[in-house]
């Protein structure tokens, strides 16, 4: 093989999955979540990962997810053990004096915040160690406790500096994650530093501070709000200003995310192979807009359905005469039926938004990343050798328990 030719070659990254395929997985999972009292979520997560992984084709070969639902289920059981002491502590706390209660809740909040760092790291480890490409496993080494501590100390600094220290925090955590990531026996590296974050972060910070602060000051100074009780309700112009703030926020968020992800990921390398990522701000903002319209559409649809159902019941009642109407009214007064209706409504609304977020936002971001990425000198990776298996479960379980798992 000619060395100069292989060095010049750039491997493409493609994404071959379609939204409707993912929608099928999500809707099936949701339907099965009810009869399994929520346990199907572990199968659901596995199916979703299989979908994302298998459809991400890097230089002609797809990723493969080898994790199983049973591993997730067992991991969750392990995580329960983490929470029993916290629950006991909460129980004992609830009976103490009020100052002690406040201090205790604060302490437990800090512990949970610390554990979330541990959990995210172990969840990444779980996913990477169950990811194969060309038959070789990825892995995340390093110490999850060290990562959690690092994240914890940085977040204290974040609070102390009102968020100004974020670029350094982000770069420190990115570096820890990527420099401990391995493909077989080859280590990843990342060259990016705080400069990659600084400009987008401070610009976004300042812009939103100006728009939100400006809108607030304007609303207060012109008294464009009505006090309902102690709650200020903004007037028409303030509403416009608030919507403007949200649009500016979404635009700047899309810009910040695409900009920093492009910059940082483009400095990631594995041996001689290097990643290049170019993400368009417009594409991500388009997804945000699509999501908002999706939410509005779903709300409209749900509202119409509810109106139809209630109207149907009412029509049935009035057709059946007064006696029937009374019996249906009394049926609606029974607590059980109402609670069943409430629960169904809650599940439908929550499920609809969850599915929408998955199909529009998660899918969109993943595809954007995959399509924007390319891999230079992919042939240098042919000599990578496999390492031993990693069968740790607990990290992912904790992530599920703390609700920090992504994808």
């Amino acid at each position: 093989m000619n060395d100069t030719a292989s060095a010049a070659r750039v491997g493409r990254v493609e994404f071959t999955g379609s939204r409707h395929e993912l929608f099928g997985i999500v809707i099936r999972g949701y339907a099965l979540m009810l009869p399994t009292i929520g346990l199907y979520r572990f199968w659901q997560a596995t199916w979703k990962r299989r979908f994302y992984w298998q459809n991400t084709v890097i230089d002609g070969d797809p990723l493969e997810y080898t994790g199983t639902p049973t591993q997730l289920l067992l991991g969750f059981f392990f995580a329960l053990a983490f929470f029993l002491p916290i629950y006991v502590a909460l129980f004992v706390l609830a009976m103490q004096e009020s100052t002690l209660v406040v201090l205790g809740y604060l302490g437990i909040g800090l512990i949970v915040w610390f554990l979330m760092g541990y959990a995210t790291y172990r969840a990444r480890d779980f996913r990477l160690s169950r990811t194969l490409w060309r038959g070789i496993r990825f892995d995340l080494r390093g110490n999850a406790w060290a990562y959690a501590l690092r994240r914890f100390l940085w977040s204290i600094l974040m609070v102390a500096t009102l968020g100004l220290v974020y670029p350094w925090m982000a770069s420190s955590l990115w570096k820890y994650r990527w420099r401990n990531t391995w493909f077989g026996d080859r280590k990843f590296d990342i060259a990016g530093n705080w400069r990659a974050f600084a400009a987008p972060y401070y610009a976004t910070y300042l812009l939103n501070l100006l728009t939100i602060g400006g809108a607030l000051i304007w609303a207060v100074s012109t008294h464009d709000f009505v006090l309902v009780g102690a709650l200020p309700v903004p007037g028409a112009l303030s509403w416009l200003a608030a919507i403007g703030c949200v649009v500016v926020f979404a635009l700047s968020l899309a810009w910040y995310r695409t900009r920093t992800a492009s910059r940082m990921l483009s400095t990631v390398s594995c041996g001689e192979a290097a990643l290049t990522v170019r993400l368009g701000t417009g594409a991500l903002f388009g997804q945000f807009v699509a999501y908002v319209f999706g939410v509005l559409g779903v709300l409209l649809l749900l509202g119409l359905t509810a109106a139809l159902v209630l109207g149907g019941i009412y029509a049935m009642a009035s057709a059946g005469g007064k006696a029937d109407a009374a019996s249906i009214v009394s049926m609606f007064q029974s607590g059980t039926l109402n609670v069943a209706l409430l629960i169904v409504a809650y599940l439908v609304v929550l499920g609809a938004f969850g599915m929408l977020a998955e199909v529009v936002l998660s899918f969109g971001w993943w595809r954007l990343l995959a399509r924007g990425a390319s891999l230079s000198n992919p042939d240098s990776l042919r000599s990578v050798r496999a390492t031993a298996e990693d069968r740790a479960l607990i990290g992912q379980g904790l992530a599920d328990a703390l609700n920090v798992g992504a994808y």
Partner: protein
Amino acid sequence: MEFAARYTDGLTADVRDVLGVIDLAADPVALVILDAQSREVIDRWPALDVYLLHSRMAELRIANRQKSPGARLAVAGIADTRSALAALPTLAQRQRAEGWGQFRILVLATAALASVIVAYLYGIPLLADRLVPYVPPAWESKIGDTAAAQVENSMTKGKGYVLCDPDPNSVGNRAIARFVANVFDGLGSPFSPHVTVVRSPIANAFALPGGRTYYLSSLIQAARTPDEFAGVLAHELGHVYYRHGMETLLANSTTGLLVGFVLGDMTGISAAAAVGTSLIDNRFSRRAEAQADRFAAETAQRLGFSPKGLVDLLERVARDDEFSRALALFSNHPLTDERRAALEALATPVADPRPIFTAAEWQAIRDMCPPAPPPPLPKPVSVL
């Protein structure tokens, strides 16, 4: 029969284009992997050892349980996947068996979880019932003191509440104390409840663990007869007697754990967890309310006043509207008309009802917290 595929041995990342050929002559039947160009044999996989992995559409991923975990034969394209599946019928069979196995695990886990939930719903009230007698009364009183401090704080936003009648030897306070002593006489309860009448615009009464009972002035003003006042007080004393506060504390402490398990969010901060927790907890508390009602009815029988006053007063201050009916399961009290029906079923008419308080005592109780005088008129602004 042969098909094109991509092959990795799971040892290095060196992927190669190969041909898969089924060697039917071999015993057992084997899948032979040939180099695509030179047709040299790279490996032979016995058909018994190969299995299918999940893959995207129009692709087969074949693994070998005897080889390294990353060894793969990936077959892409509809024509090639068809011929591979036709050549190796065991592949599809094994995948079906695998799917069936997953289904069994899921069913088993669901059944286990369902039985935990059922055991919880029926077991915890029983368990809390059985556990409460083992909680030392002194401990419960201490918890009650802490709770009292919190309640007083939240009721008055830290300003300190107004005791209606701070003198324990006033006619009203002595009448109430006598009533409480009569109610608890001979019951063998470790607690001697203390009733505090507090000025408040909210018509309510409640008991804390350990026997501290609060009666808010608006509820006294709403009561038309001594029986009404006594009925509600007896109900609250029922909570003290059955140690419901402690029981709820024991029962609630584990609910979050269960809901968190079902929803997968152990932090329990999500709204769903809150709704679920309150649904389950209110099951306990409605049971406790019914028990306290029964206590009030029995007390009324024993002391000879009418138990209906309890519901009369409740009906006056908390009329069930459509909304409260809709939210019945979310509320910690049973609906008033359900309570009336239950109480009427319990009450045998008292042969010779006599007032539980003398007219003078009842007047004194009503006078403990006279309605607040109207707010003073704003001072006329004098322009000088």
